[in-house]
């Protein structure tokens, strides 16, 4: 191929005059994911009305979510915010008995500098329910980054991984897995001996099962997920634990896991699309000394089943205006499907966390003979148009 293709990725940054959803929208999926949680959003009518419309009919099912609506007395500091929050939390504990209450800070609490992080530990001690504080406000974050702030905070509450000294190499060996005469199962689950692997990112439970199964096929055991279905089941983290993310917008969580919890981060492209999923597994396996098995055939089969759709999109073009940080992965997938991507707008670009994805994007472009699209952080809608 003699066509000249621009092989370097260019990054630009604009003014941030674009549209996306407020990060408190993360409440709408996280409260469903974490089944014993309660989300208390500390904000104004604006926030409440947004969530009311976003949750739609779910709001009538008495979800584990409520607004602590700030009134004029709260803003002008006439009321004692600690006492106010305490009253609300006691009521929540009585009505819902959650395992954890998560306070979501909003733009308003940022501006009036409400000290949620200061009040939470004290209140936690008083009422006996764990309280986490996540600042998911539109001043600093966009849309899906709300999940990032919540998971980053949750990571701190994960128990320490206990490695009994000298035993880690002897935990599970292949010899132990041969069936006892009494066992009836024909197929045995075998896992290799490897350090713990924790996956982070909020996915519906059937997808969690699917990814667990994919890794199991490669003899890799996932010791836990962050977030877990229940707060009580948070995975153990610590030195020697490997972590890998499934969502591209979890840069802060990754940083917290590396720096605070001393975990090892496996930087991989994200399991979006058959190519992404394969690359994700291919990055994890070598870390534990495993060779991948039959991934190529599986990917081919998936592409085969998509044949009709691929025919429809081949050669067509896409422009990403940017709103949810999934754009790099989606662009990479669509390029692999045969489309042309002109520009990728994205609210925030974490080059280190998305390093593998960016590399895969580059490779995919070269493979499909398409120029690498510009990546524009904090896009400006008018410039885009």
């Amino acid at each position, binding site marked *: 191929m003699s066509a000249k293709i621009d092989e370097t990725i260019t990054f630009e940054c604009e003014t941030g005059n674009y549209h996306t959803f407020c990060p408190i929208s993360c409440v709408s999926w996280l409260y469903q994911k974490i089944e014993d949680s309660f989300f208390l959003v500390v904000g104004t009518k604006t926030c409440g009305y947004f969530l009311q419309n976003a949750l739609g009919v779910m709001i009538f099912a008495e979800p584990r979510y409520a607004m602590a609506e700030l009134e004029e007395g709260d803003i002008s500091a006439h009321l004692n915010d600690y006492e106010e929050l305490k009253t609300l939390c006691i*009521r929540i504990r009585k009505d819902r008995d959650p395992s954890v209450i998560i306070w979501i800070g909003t733009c308003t609490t940022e501006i009036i500098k409400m000290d949620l992080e200061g009040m939470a530990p004290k209140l936690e001690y008083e009422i006996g329910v764990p309280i986490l504080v996540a600042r998911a406000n539109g001043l600093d974050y966009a849309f899906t980054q709300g999940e990032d702030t919540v998971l980053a905070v949750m990571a701190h509450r994960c128990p320490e991984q206990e490695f009994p000294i000298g035993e880690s190499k002897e935990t599970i060996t292949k010899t132990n897995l041969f069936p006892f005469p009494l066992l009836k199962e024909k197929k045995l689950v075998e896992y290799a001996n490897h350090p713990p692997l924790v996956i982070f990112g909020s996915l519906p439970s059937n997808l969690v099962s699917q990814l667990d199964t994919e890794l199991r096929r490669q003899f890799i055991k996932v010791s836990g997920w962050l977030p877990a279905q229940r707060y009580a089941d948070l995975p153990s983290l610590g030195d020697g634990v490997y972590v890998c993310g499934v969502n591209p917008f979890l840069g802060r969580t990754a940083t917290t896991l590396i720096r605070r919890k001393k975990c090892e981060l496996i930087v991989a492209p994200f399991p979006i699309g058959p190519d992404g999923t394969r690359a994700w597994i291919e990055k994890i396996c070598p870390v534990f000394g495993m060779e991948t098995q039959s991934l190529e055939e599986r990917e081919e089969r998936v592409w085969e089943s998509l044949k009709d759709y691929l025919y429809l999109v081949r050669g067509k073009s896409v422009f990403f205006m940017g709103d949810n940080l999934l754009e790099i992965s989606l662009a990479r997938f669509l390029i692999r499907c045969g489309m042309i991507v002109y520009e990728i707008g994205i609210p925030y670009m974490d080059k280190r966390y998305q390093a593998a994805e960016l590399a895969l994007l580059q490779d995919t472009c070269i493979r499909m003979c398409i120029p690498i699209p510009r990546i524009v952080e904090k896009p400006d809608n008018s410039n885009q148009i």
Partner: protein
Amino acid sequence: MKLAHWMYAGPAHIGTLRVASSFKNVHAIMHAPLGDDYFNVMRSMLERERNFTPATASIVDRHVLARGSKKRVVDNILRKDKEEGPNLIILTPTCTSSILQEDLKNFVDRASIISDCNVIFADVDHYQVNEIQAADRTLEQVVRYYLEKSHRQETLDQFVTDAPSVNIIGILTLGFHNRHDCRELRRLLKDLDIRINQIIPEGGSVEDPKNLPKARFNLIPYREVGLMTAMYLNKEFGMPYVSTTPMGAVDMAACIRQIKKYLDTLAAPILSSKRVDYESYIDGQTRFVSQAAWFSRSIDCQNFTGKETVVFGDATHAASITKILAREMGIRVSCTGTYCKHDAEWFKEQIKDFCDEIIITDDHAEVGDIIARVEPSAIFGTQMERHIGKRLEIPCGVISAPAHIQNFSLGYRPFLGYEGTNQIADPVYNSFALGMEDHLLEIFCGHDTKEIMTKSLSTDMSLIWNPESRLELNKIPRFVRDEVERNTEKFARRKGILN
């Protein structure tokens, strides 16, 4: 601080945005952080309108917090002016603005010196007013601005039309059945041979307000939005206004008679050759065109005489529906209420003879408690009451905002006018009838027995699900679980996997 799950009226900036996006060629700029401009999404989702909502945000971020919004706001205003060429830009504050307390009015003044279009700052405080009051206020502000401007430029045409004419004030985007009501009002006024001068704000241009004084009188179909404007026009230009909501046969008659009274007193020579006999019009419509009146006297509807209901909604709709149920259909209203606390006095005055109990609250839990206590045969309220009804297994018809997409119907469903009486009678009747259906089915033990028989005969060979698979299956939402289970078993049988 208040623990809140649900609010009936939205925040103030939504009201302002509704007014702005109702006018043609008016652009709203919100002074807000990322994510506060969800109004765009709401509007296109609910109104199902093809045109893009003309509301953008001047984003408030850390830069702005540090350095102040002035430069960015002014830049955004000037940019929109150049790009879109609107007649008017309305700068809309949000709750964030109310805290930051920057002098947004000053920025607006600066921008309007340079811009081609007019620029106004919507003067509403987030913590003082809600969506409805803000809409009312912003509409009045826009009308006042243009009338004062015309007055200064001496382009104000105050000569009242010869033929009878009217302005309809208060048809708004995202208003409950507003579009259909407007169409019905047009029909009604045409029948009465009254020309429509202006309809604001929906579909109106901001060039229109200066022509408002030309009409003989103003018609305000909904109290919540439009009253302030009507009072201003009354004070400044002596224009009378009719604010009797034309909903239900009795109030329709009252409204039409009031219109007649104003037109007679304004006694200008009537040049139209057609003189409309209002009384016979009212009679004809009530008895023949509207089906509701005779139906409510028929035996089917008589079954509901004395049945109890609870009504709740905005002041206009809750009051009108209460009166219709009590006066026109013989149904007993045990409790009626509204969340429009600022209009409580008017509301109480209107319905005091038609119900047993009155409730004025914006706490949905209180409303739920009352419904649970009274246990009516049907509820007429907002979408929140519909869900309360579902929980308590009481049928409910939706008669007021806040509403969902099903209340922004593509089909023609007015609440006002004579067609409106039919449209109201239908859900009223259906709510009671369907409620009774459920009782009857319960008494006679369940639905089609045939289905139950077929179900048990479906499998001759039962498959074994191991615990791990059962766990997977339980992750599937309940309403599709059976289908998924059957399909999985079919697949397994086809492949010869039996356990």
